[in-house]
């Protein structure tokens, strides 16, 4: 079995196109990822949003004496950058590492060999439902993350700088393209971290420290993958203007 990320992605796509991925298990994985990560993602985005907003407002008051323009800028920044990023990073730590550890444990206990012996592709059974599920869960996690981030900003501005939420929340600043971009980013991050987690699990040495190393690889590859993918997508959007 080849274990490069692109080979894995190709054979996963192959299974998806042929629709022999167990859909029920994919939905179960999406459900587990969503419910497991929801509170963590919301808490993380809330804190990041509050500190970004605080920082921006403090600088603006110091330099310009006016904080009126922060609301729209913050909304766009949160939507296109930080909400999807935090969804991705959180999913790398939870989903990516978890999947890597699960697959590596199965490898350590000989279950992967047993599957291969029965002519079953371990990728189809163990990884494909999780990748598809993470894709769905990330798309579902991004909107609540946006809302929580925006509310955290609004609360910070009200409490620390007495800026009314009605002044701060300027929904007109958001274009449809921004939301599409955020959803595309989140979905790609979710799929990428899970794929990298599966890859780390499949490459593990079959013993206890191998499982630990695989889970670590899962987190590391996942969070680095999210950062690099984020930079690439930002640069693409900056140069092409889409979406």
């Amino acid at each position, binding site marked *: 079995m080849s274990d490069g990320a692109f080979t894995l992605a190709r054979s996963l796509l192959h299974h998806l196109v042929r629709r022999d991925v167990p859909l029920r298990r994919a939905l179960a994985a999406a459900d587990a990822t969503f419910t497991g990560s929801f509170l963590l993602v919301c808490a993380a985005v809330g804190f990041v949003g509050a500190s970004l907003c*605080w920082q921006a407002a403090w600088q603006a008051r110091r330099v310009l004496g006016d904080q009126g323009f922060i609301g729209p800028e913050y909304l766009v920044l949160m939507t296109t950058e930080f909400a999807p990023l935090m969804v991705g990073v959180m999913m790398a730590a939870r989903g990516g590492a978890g999947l890597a550890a699960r697959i590596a*444990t199965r490898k350590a206990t000989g279950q992967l060999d047993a599957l291969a012996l029965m002519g079953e592709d371990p990728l189809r059974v163990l990884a494909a439902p999780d990748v598809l599920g993470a894709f769905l869960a990330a798309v579902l996690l991004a909107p609540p993350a946006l809302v929580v981030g925006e509310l955290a900003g609004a609360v910070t501005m009200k409490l620390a700088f007495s800026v009314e939420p009605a002044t701060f929340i300027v929904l007109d600043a958001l274009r449809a393209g921004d939301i599409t971009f955020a959803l595309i980013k989140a979905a790609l991050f979710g799929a990428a971290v899970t794929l990298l987690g599966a890859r780390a699990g499949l490459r593990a040495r079959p013993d206890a420290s191998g*499982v630990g190393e695989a889970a670590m690889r899962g987190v590391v590859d996942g*969070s680095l993958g999210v*950062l690099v993918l984020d930079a690439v997508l930002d640069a693409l959007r900056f140069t092409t203007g889409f979406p």
Partner: protein
Amino acid sequence: MSALAAVGRPVLVVTQVTGAMLLGALRAARAALRFRVPLRETVRQVERSGLACLPLTVFASISVGCIVAVQGMGYVRRYSAPEVYGWAAYFSAVREVGPLLMGLALSARLGALHAAELAAMKATDRVDALRALGVDVHAVLVAPRILAMPLAAVLLMAWSDAVSLGSATLFAWAFGDVTPWTTWGSIHKYSLWSDLLLGLAKAAMYGLFSALAATAIGMSADAGADGVGRAVMRAAVVSIVVIVVLNHALTVGWAG
């Protein structure tokens, strides 16, 4: 009942982890004050943490530079003010967004590394073997890691500052017609050393707290391959949460 359980479980996890971190900090401080932490092991941990993260730091910093540059260039385009681009990039890369993103990436890497090692040692009964020999495992295994990580994090953050500023400069030159001379002139004119120092101080704090979380979780891992995997995942998640909360506290505390 299940609603109560859903509230109770996170509360239990938070109190458990906080308590374990506090205990770890106290034990490490006590061992350090009595000069019972092996210096050579601490230096070795700094070295291998730094080396283990070097490739990750380079790639992540290039990405952070690009992310910062895209944001900065957006403002340059809208307000046509290329002369503040360098300052904006410096400020986010060195003080705000840079430390946050690098903290997340590095703490996931280092936290998972140390949690994985300690958990694997525990799963293979090596920690118990050391205890049976009368060795103080906290002074020998845990304290060097807790002392080494802030130092490694500061060194890596300094390296990351240089790489991400370089990448932001090149990005603006390639895609936005802001020459490196304009960028560096702007950094030279408007930037403060205190921003750089705050960024490095943040990195040290993130390193310290994620080391506390990772060692506490690694030392309390369940036996078996399964337990090791879960410990690593939990260390990564807790590190991220700790950093996000610390980031907020440091930002608000420093300025206010």
